[in-house]
């Protein structure tokens, strides 16, 4: 059982490229998560991610800077091609990475059976949000940490932590899945490509932007118009869960507005709730985002013990957020 006087929470930061990994390490990340350049990771966008050599170099660099590296192999293996996912685990183990983040039973099983010394984290894509589900993964595969799905409020996280013996990691900043992670087929329904299998939500080859004569930006996915932004109005990602639709005669953001998560104000409560690690989303983001967000949250986490004022640094992050807006999401029960 963890004491309420918890030790400092670990800051887990994204890296889509070796350059971003270096930026995250320089900005004070305790751990950096990244993926291989194929469909084994859930940010499989063109131009992103690491070759096996880049991963090994990245691990060496991060370790020199005192940061850990966690390798996300967090999609679900394609039937008949499970070996690609198993090889990704082997590559991660060989790179000297500190842990693998996985969701698929087959991937977890391979890691647990063949790399017993490799630390396993349960990806948010597994959507394990009950003590029973988390214990299943811990007992079956020796999972040491679970990344919690974004469905729980802070009091629920505190209650959960009292019932389990594994560490918990929660998202505190960045893109926000509105649907339960790993349990959403909206993108595949529109495009035919499953994020669970290919690692791409709203695949860019199915995204189309047009700006009309009035400066109105129309975003289409798979040929469906899913959002419209007036001239000068802040835009968001072309994801269905943050698109505009018509229901009951009203048109608007039925699921969620274009908005990003910022749980900065809840860091103290999350620490008291027994959370071990704080995760920043954004492996698809640039070095400017990494440096800005990681730096600000480094200050914020440190301020819990040193009393510094991270306010201005956190305030400057608004421009990095979708639609220029932020939310505490499901951490506050009223979001539901």
């Amino acid at each position, binding site marked *: 059982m963890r004491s309420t006087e918890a030790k400092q929470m670990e800051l887990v930061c994204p890296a889509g490229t070796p350059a971003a990994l270096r930026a995250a390490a320089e900005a004070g990340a305790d751990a950096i998560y990244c993926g291989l350049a194929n469909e084994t990771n859930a940010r499989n966008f063109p131009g992103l991610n690491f070759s096996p050599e880049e991963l090994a170099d990245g691990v060496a660099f991060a370790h020199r800077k005192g940061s850990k590296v966690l390798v996300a192999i967090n999609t679900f293996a394609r039937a008949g091609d499970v070996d690609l996912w198993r090889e990704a685990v082997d590559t991660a183990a060989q790179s000297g990475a500190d842990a693998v983040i996985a969701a698929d039973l087959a991937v977890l099983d391979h890691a647990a059976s063949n790399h017993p010394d490799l630390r396993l984290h349960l990806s948010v894509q597994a959507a394990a949000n009950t003590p029973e589900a988390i214990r299943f993964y811990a007992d079956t595969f020796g999972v040491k940490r679970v990344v919690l799905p974004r469905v729980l409020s802070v009091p629920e996280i505190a209650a959960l932590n009292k019932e389990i013996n594994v560490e918990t990691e929660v998202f505190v900043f960045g893109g926000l899945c509105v649907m339960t992670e790993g349990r959403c087929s909206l993108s595949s329904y529109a495009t035919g490509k499953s994020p669970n299998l290919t690692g791409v939500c709203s695949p860019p080859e199915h995204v189309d932007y047009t700006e009309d004569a009035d400066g109105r930006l129309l975003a289409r996915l798979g040929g469906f118009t899913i959002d419209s932004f007036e001239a000068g109005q802040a835009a968001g990602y072309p994801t269905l869960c943050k698109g505009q639709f018509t229901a009951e005669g009203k048109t608007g953001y039925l699921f969620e507005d274009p908005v990003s998560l910022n749980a900065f104000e809840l860091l103290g409560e999350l620490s008291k709730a027994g959370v071990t690690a704080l995760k920043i989303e954004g492996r698809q983001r640039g070095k400017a985002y990494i440096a800005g967000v990681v730096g600000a949250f480094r200050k914020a986490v440190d301020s819990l013990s040193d009393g510094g004022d991270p306010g201005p640094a956190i305030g400057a992050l608004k*421009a*990095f957020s979708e*639609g220029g807006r932020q939310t505490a999401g499901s951490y506050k029960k009223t979001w539901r």
Partner: protein
Amino acid sequence: MQTHPSSESLPPLVSSLVAPLPKPPMEALLSTLTRRLVARRPDLIRRLGDVVRVPIAIVPDDLPHAFLLSLDPDNSRVRICDKSRIGDARAIVRAPFLALLGLLDGTYDGDALFFSRDLRIEGRTEHVLALRNTLEEADLTPGEFFGLSGQSADWVNTISDKLLGQVRAFAQKSAHADCSRQKLS
């Protein structure tokens, strides 16, 4: 940290000064530098993926010309052309010149520029993403782009940082002045 370039258009005076400059020597220089970069960094070619086969247009809002980019490893080149002559491009990226420069050297985050509507994308989104992500990895400081290393690279980077900083400040000031003038009239 730079997060908000929204008011950073080049003053019209700068644009009109640039307009009559001779294009061929600029094209030749940019093409040579790009070719050298691509030869130096084969990892970037892997990242670019399909982009190496398609022309992409970079269109600065506040300059009279567009840049047509071909990143074929055997024949990379940069063409400077009229904004109306980018029909070949499979994808078009539009943004103020300083925002584009900021993307190139990693000062700005591409998604944030997109959210703020400073950056607009037309055509094949996947090519723009691949290019953007590759540029992130390229770490294109001016020194890197010119193929410099060590002290000379540091020297060029410092000077251009200072220069760009001043240009950005100037652009913001003149945009601000523009705004005030509009409010007065």
